[in-house]
C-alpha cells in the first residue's frame, strides 16, 4: 500500500455541512411528516392527471351527445320532430359543451374543485350530476363497500391458513376451490343464490333494497330491513371476492413460510394459530392493504349486473343508464368519484402503512 493519505492518526471527521434551510432541516428531522407531504403531493398530481385524462377522453369523443340524445328522445316518444337546433344549442350551453375545449376544461375544473359541481345530469335533467350520483352512492357503498371489506377479511384469513397449512387436505380444498371459483362471475353466483334462497326456500327477498312498507329512517325496522334485503347481493359478492383474496394471500404467504422467524417461532413452541396470526400473517398481509385500496375502484364499475339482478338502487345502474344516454356529466362524475375514492383510499393506506409495518422506508 502506498500512503497517499495523511498518516493514520490524522484522519478527522469533517464538520457536518450546515443545513440549507430551517424548513429542510425540519423535514429531515421529521421524516414521517416529510413522507406524508411528499405522498400528498404525489396524490395531488395523480388526482389531477386522472381527472384530466377522464375529462378529455370523453370530451374529445366525436359526435355530440346532446344532439344525439335529443333526437333519440324525440324519436322514441314521437315528439314533434323539428330542426332541433334551438333545443340543442340551448342544452349544449347548459351542459358546458360550447366553446373551446380548453376553456371548457378550465371551467369544468373550476366548478369541480371550487364548488364540487359536475354540471347538470342528462339522465335526470336538470338535477345536477353530483346529486344523481350522491343519491345512489350510499347504497353502493353500503352494499359493495361492506361486502368488499368482508371479502377481504375472510380472504386474508382463509388464504393465510391455506398457505400455512400447505399440504394439508383442508388447505388443498380451499386452494382448489378458490382456483376454480375465483373467476366465476359474481352475478352467476347471485343468480343461484336468488334461486335457492329467495325462490326455492323463500327465506330472503329477491329484489330491492328494503321493505317498501317501512319508511326510510334511522329506525331499527328500517335497518333490519336493509340488512335483510342486502344479504343475498352481499353474499354473492363476498363469496366470490373471498376466493380471489384467498388465492393472492396464499401466494404471498408461501415465501414468508420459508423465513427464519417462522422456524424460530415454531421452535419457541408457540401455538400454531398464534404463529399464523402474529408471525406469518402480519408479515404478508401488507401488500394486500394496498391491493384492497386499488380494488375499491371496482365498486364503481364492477357490479352492475348484481345491482341489476337485485334491482338495487346503486351507482352501477346509474352509470349504465348514463352510458346508454351518453350523459357525460354523470359518466365523468362517476369516473371522477371512482378516481377520487381510490386515490384517497390508497393515500390513506400508504400513510397508514408505516404504522402497520415498521419496516417501511419513508424515502424512495
Amino acid at each position, binding site marked *: 500500500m502506498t500512503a497517499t493519505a495523511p498518516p493514520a492518526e490524522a484522519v478527522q471527521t469533517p464538520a457536518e455541512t450546515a443545513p440549507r434551510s430551517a424548513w429542510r432541516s425540519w423535514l429531515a428531522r421529521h421524516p414521517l411528516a416529510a413522507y406524508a407531504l411528499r405522498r400528498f403531493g404525489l396524490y395531488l398530481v395523480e388526482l389531477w392527471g386522472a381527472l384530466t385524462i377522464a375529462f378529455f377522453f370523453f370530451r374529445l369523443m366525436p359526435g355530440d351527445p346532446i344532439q344525439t340524445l335529443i333526437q333519440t328522445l324525440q324519436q322514441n316518444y314521437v315528439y314533434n320532430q323539428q330542426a332541433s337546433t334551438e333545443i340543442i344549442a340551448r342544452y349544449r350551453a347548459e351542459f358546458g359543451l360550447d366553446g373551446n375545449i380548453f376553456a371548457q376544461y378550465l371551467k369544468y375544473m373550476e366548478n369541480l374543485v371550487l364548488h364540487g359541481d359536475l354540471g347538470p345530469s342528462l339522465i335526470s335533467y336538470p338535477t345536477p350530476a353530483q346529486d344523481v350520483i350522491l343519491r345512489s352512492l350510499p347504497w353502493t357503498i353500503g352494499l359493495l363497500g361492506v361486502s368488499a371489506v368482508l371479502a377481504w377479511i375472510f380472504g386474508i384469513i382463509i388464504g393465510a391458513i391455506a398457505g400455512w397449512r400447505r399440504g394439508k387436505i383442508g388447505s388443498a380444498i380451499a386452494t*382448489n376451490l378458490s*382456483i376454480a371459483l375465483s373467476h366465476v362471475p359474481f352475478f352467476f353466483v347471485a343468480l343461484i343464490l336468488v334461486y335457492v334462497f329467495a325462490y326455492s326456500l323463500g327465506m330472503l327477498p329477491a329484489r330491492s333494497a328494503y321493505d317498501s312498507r317501512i319508511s326510510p329512517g334511522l329506525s331499527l325496522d328500517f335497518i333490519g330491513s336493509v340488512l335483510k334485503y342486502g344479504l343475498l347481493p352481499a353474499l354473492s359478492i363476498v363469496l366470490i371476492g373471498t376466493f380471489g383474496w384467498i388465492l393472492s394471500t396464499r401466494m404471498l404467504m408461501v415465501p414468508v413460510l420459508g423465513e427464519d422467524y417462522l422456524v424460530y417461532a415454531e421452535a419457541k413452541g408457540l401455538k400454531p394459530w398464534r404463529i399464523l396470526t402474529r408471525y406469518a400473517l402480519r408479515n404478508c398481509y401488507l401488500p394486500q392493504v394496498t391491493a384492497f385500496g386499488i380494488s375499491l375502484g371496482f365498486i364503481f364499475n364492477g357490479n352492475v349486473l348484481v345491482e341489476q339482478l337485485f334491482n338495487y338502487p346503486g351507482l352501477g345502474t346509474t352509470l349504465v343508464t348514463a352510458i346508454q344516454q351518453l350523459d357525460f356529466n354523470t359518466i365523468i362524475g362517476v369516473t371522477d368519484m371512482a378516481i377520487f375514492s381510490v386515490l384517497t383510499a390508497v393515500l390513506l393506506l400508504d400513510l397508514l402503512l408505516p404504522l402497520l409495518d415498521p419496516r417501511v422506508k419513508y424515502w424512495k
Partner: protein
Amino acid sequence: MRVLNAVLRTVRNSKRLATGLVILAVMVLVAIFSPLIVSSIGGDTDPLEMAAYEKWLVPSPDHVLGTDQFGRDVLAMVVSAMSVSLQIGAIAGVISTVVGVIVAFVAGYKGGWVDGVLSTFTGVLLVIPTFPLLIALSAYAKNVSLFQVGVMISIFSWPFAAKTIRSQVLSLRSRPYVDLARVSKSRDLEIIGTELLPNLLPFIGVGFASSALGAIFGLVGLEVIGLGPGGVIDLGQIIFNAINTGALTLGAWPMFVVPIVLLTLLFAALNMINIGLEEVYNPRLRGVAGE
C-alpha cells in the same frame, strides 16, 4: 435455455404443473381444431348459423348440449367460443404481461425519476374506471379485429401487472446475486432476464393468468357496447346470453354450466402451472410435500 431446462425439470417433478399443462394443451388443441369440430357437428348445415335448428332444444344425441334461443348448436358454439376466448386471453394476457413486466422492470430497476414518472402513470391508469372509457372508444372504432380488442383490453390491464411486479423488482434488485452478476460482466438486460425474471415467474404467471381471464370476461363487456370483434362467439358471450335469456330457470343448463366449467378449468390449469413455477422459483419448497 436455462429457464426452459428448469421448467422441463420441474414438469417432471411436479404433478400439478404437469396436470395444468395437459389441461391447457387439450384446450388449445380443441381450439386449434375448432373449425373441423364445428363442421363435423353440423354436417351440411353450419351449426353456428342463426336459426340453423329449432331454438331451445334440450340436449339430445343430435345436439349434445342442445340449442340456444336462436337455434344454434350449443356444443358447436362452445367449441368455437373456446378458441376465441383462448385467443383473446392469450393476446391480452401476453400484451399486458409484457408491457407490465417491461414497465415494472424499467421502473424498478432503473429507479429515480424514470420510476417516478412510470409509477405515477401506472397509478393514474390504475384508478380510471375502464368501462366508460371503453364506451367512448367504441365511438371511434370501426371494424375491430380480435387482436385490436386484445390491445384495447390490455391498455387497462397492464398496470396491475406492472404494479405488483415493480415492488418485487425493488426488493430483488438489491440482492447480492444481482451484484455478483454485475461484476461478472452481465449487462442490465441480461441481469433482468436471467437473474430477476426467473424469480418473478410466479408473479408474472399470476399476472398473466388474471389478465387473460380478465380479458376473456372483458370481451363480453366490449361486445355489449359494440367493441367486439364482429361475428365471433366467445365463452363469456355464451354465459352472458344464458343470463339474459334466463337459461337457468328454463333449465338450459348447458348454456352456462359448460362455459363456466371450461373457464374454471382454464383458470385452474393456469394456476396449477403457476404453483408449479412457484416451486421452480423457490427450490426450498421442493420436496415439501406439495398439495
